[in-house]
Structures are given as C-alpha cells and as structure tokens.
C-alpha cells in the first residue's frame, strides 16, 4: 500500500466524519436527545437514592457509567437513522471510497457525538453528586475516553446493521449490551479507585485491559465493516 493511499484513507475518513458532524450540528436532534437523557438519568439517580442506606461515594462511579452508557446508545441510535432518512448511505457507497475509511469516518463521528455528551454529563455529575474529583480528573477523563472508544466501535457496526431492521431502537441495545459489559465494568472499577484516591499502580491494570479491548475491537470492526456494505 503506497503512502498516497494511506493519506487518502485518512482524508476520506475525516471527510466522512466531518460530514456527519456537520449534518448533526445543523439538526442537533441526536445530541439534544442524548444530553436530555443524561441529565434525566443523573437527576433520577439523585432523587431515587435513599440517603441513609447508600452512600454517594459508593454509588457514584456506577451512576456515572450508567449515564454514559445509556446516553451513548441514544446517540448511536440516531447516527445511522439520519442516513436512512436521507438515503445518503447508498450515495456514499456508490462513491469509490474504501469501506474501511467509511467505517473510520462513521466511528470518529460517533465518538465525537458520545464524547460531547460525556463532556457535559461529567461536570453535571460532579455537581449533582458532590464528588470530590480533585486530581483524579485526568484519570477519569482518560478512562472515559478508553472505555467509550471500545463500545462506540462495536456500536457503529451494530447501528449500521440495525438501521435496516424493524424495531431498530430495541435491536441496537440488545445486541450492544454484552459488548458494553466488559469496558463499562472495568471503567467503573477504575473510576471508583480513582475517585477514592488509590495509587496509580492499582489502576494501571484496568487501563491496560481497556486499551487491549479497544485495540482488538476497533481492528475487528474495521475488518468486518466491509461485509456489511456488500451489494
């Protein structure tokens, strides 16, 4: 593969991602829906918690990640729905672009959506739950990025598949749930340790796992995506 085609690959991917982000920016429906969902989840958890029985600190990491996970799925659901509505996917496919570049572009756009939601949800979480995040901010952000990168890759694949089915909004979470469990549970573990100020050595293992998961699944998704787009 010559250097020209590698550059082309990334240019196409970025173009696809930019287009998706531009489209979403104009209508903003997915972003708004996901944000509203995140805020709602945080508020409900805050009120549903029985202050006497469950300490905030114990619940905090789980609440954060439930919020991230659910709003991530909401964001993902919308991403291919836009394509379906505009029949834009067929147009894209007719262009002589590498399928891998197409996946990367969609993946980056979805990442941008979900990161945007998380970027709003995290400060709100700190606010609502009175979490003393202090020096752990960097670590929490890092863990969030790693875990999100993992399940958004698989979510991009499944969103592409389920957009063509009936009950798409139900099918995506059903398929995605098993794939979210490992990164989300590891992220909760790591976040819990970060928030309670554990030494970095304890957290390194979880970070490595998350990184491994990302590596394996982004690669696997890149490899299988072309099969989805066959004629």
């Amino acid at each position: 593969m010559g250097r020209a085609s590698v550059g082309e690959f990334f240019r196409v991917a970025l173009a696809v991602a930019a287009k998706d982000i531009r489209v979403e920016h104009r209508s903003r429906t997915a972003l708004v829906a996901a944000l509203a969902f995140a805020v709602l989840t945080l508020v409900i958890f805050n009120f549903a918690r029985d202050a006497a029985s469950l300490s905030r600190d114990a619940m905090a990491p789980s609440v954060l990640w439930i919020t991230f996970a659910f709003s991530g799925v909401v964001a993902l659901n919308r991403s291919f729905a836009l394509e379906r509505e505009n029949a834009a996917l067929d147009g894209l496919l007719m262009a002589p672009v590498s399928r891998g570049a197409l996946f990367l572009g969609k993946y980056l756009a979805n990442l941008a959506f979900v990161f945007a939601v998380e970027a709003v949800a995290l400060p709100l979480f700190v606010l609502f739950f009175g979490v003393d995040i202090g020096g752990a901010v960097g670590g929490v952000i890092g863990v969030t990025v790693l875990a999100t990168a993992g399940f958004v890759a698989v979510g991009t694949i499944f969103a592409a598949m389920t957009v063509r089915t009936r009950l798409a909004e139900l099918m995506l979470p059903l398929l995605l749930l098993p794939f979210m469990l490992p990164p989300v549970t590891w992220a909760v573990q790591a976040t819990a340790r970060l928030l309670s100020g554990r030494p970095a050595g304890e957290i390194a293992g979880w970070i490595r796992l998350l990184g491994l998961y990302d590596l394996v699944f982004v690669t696997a998704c890149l490899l299988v995506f072309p099969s989805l787009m066959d004629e």
Partner: protein
Amino acid sequence: MPDLHAARRAASRGLILIAVGLAGLAGIYILALRFTPVERFQGLPQKIFYIHVPAAWSALVAFSLVGIASALYLWLRDPRLDLFAESAAAAGLVFSVIMLTTGPLWGKPVWGTWWEWDARLTFTLILFFLFLGYRALRSALVDPLERARFSAVVGILGFVLVPFVHLTVYLFRTVHPQPIVLKPSEPSLPWEMLRTLLASVGVFTVLLIGFVATRYALGKMEQIKGADDGR
C-alpha cells in the same frame, strides 16, 4: 427429489442421535442421583453441578461453532456455513437457558441468593444475550444474503468478546466455586464425582451434536422445498 430424501434421512439420523442423548441423560440422572456420593458441604443441591457444568460446556462449544462458522462464511460465502451457524446458535440458546435456570437453583441453597453478580454468572447472562441477539437479528432481516452476512458479523464479534469476559472472571473475587476440574494440577474431585461429570459432559455433547445436525437437516429440507416451489 433425491436431495430432499437425503436431507430427510439426515434429519432422521439427527433425531436418533437426540434420542440416544435423551436416554443418556436419563442414565446420567440415575448415575448422579443414586450412584454418586453426596457432597459434604453443599448437600443435595451440589448434584446440580452434574447438569449445570455440562450445559455450560455445550453452550460454550455451540458458541464457538457459531463464531468459527461465521468467520468461515464471511470468507467463503457458502450458505451451508450460514445454516450451520444458525443451527448451532439455536442449540446454544437451549443450553444457555439450562445454564441460566440451573445456576440460580444451585446458588440459592448454597450461597443464599438466587443471583450473584459474580463474573461467572454474568458470563452466563452475556452468552444468553448474545444467542438471543443473534436470533433476534436474524428474524428481523428478510433478505437471506443480508441476514447471513449480518449475523455472521455478530457471531464473529461475539466470539472475540468471550475471552474478555473470561478475563473478567479472574479479576473479580467471586462467590462462584473455583474451577476444580480444569486446574493445571490434578483435579480435586473424587473419582466418583469426576466420572459422573465426564459422563454427563459426554451426554450433553451428544445432545448438542444431535440438535445441531437435526436443525441443519431441517433447514436444508426447507431450503430445498422452497427452491422446488419455484422461488
């Protein structure tokens, strides 16, 4: 039509194998209940072990078959591989339902709760959802080629997921009984229990093969008849 006769004979052979498996299962019941000593600490419920573990084994084998057949399908595009994957997934679903029902029935008397979010039970649940999602996706897709491709992607990604779930097993302290058979050193099960377990694994394997073979032959029969009607 010679092909149809061949398929019907194959289906009958599969059914005979299932019948053998059923007889074997009855034999295992007798073996486990009458001729195997009662475990000292858990009492009678421990005997569920002789059903739960072989069912887990069969579910895992079925799942691997789905994964391998899916990968081969995407590579070779042979529709027989797709039918095989579908058949294995159906059998796997049956065995994972057995796992999910016998697990809590064993857990309640021994650990005190119906469910523990320990890694191994969670693994059971994940496997079940993967099988369920695979089937749900298949029934939501109409075009046979698209259905084959998309479910193959799910099969492959699910197969890639399993080691990560397995990793999680060893990272969490778990209530689940530690692996006593597959330890590197010699198994710590007394011989009478080990032989019952191994016999049961054999029977469950026979059942798995029977289920898959019959379902495959059935699929062939339906395909041939569909073709005969001029579709």
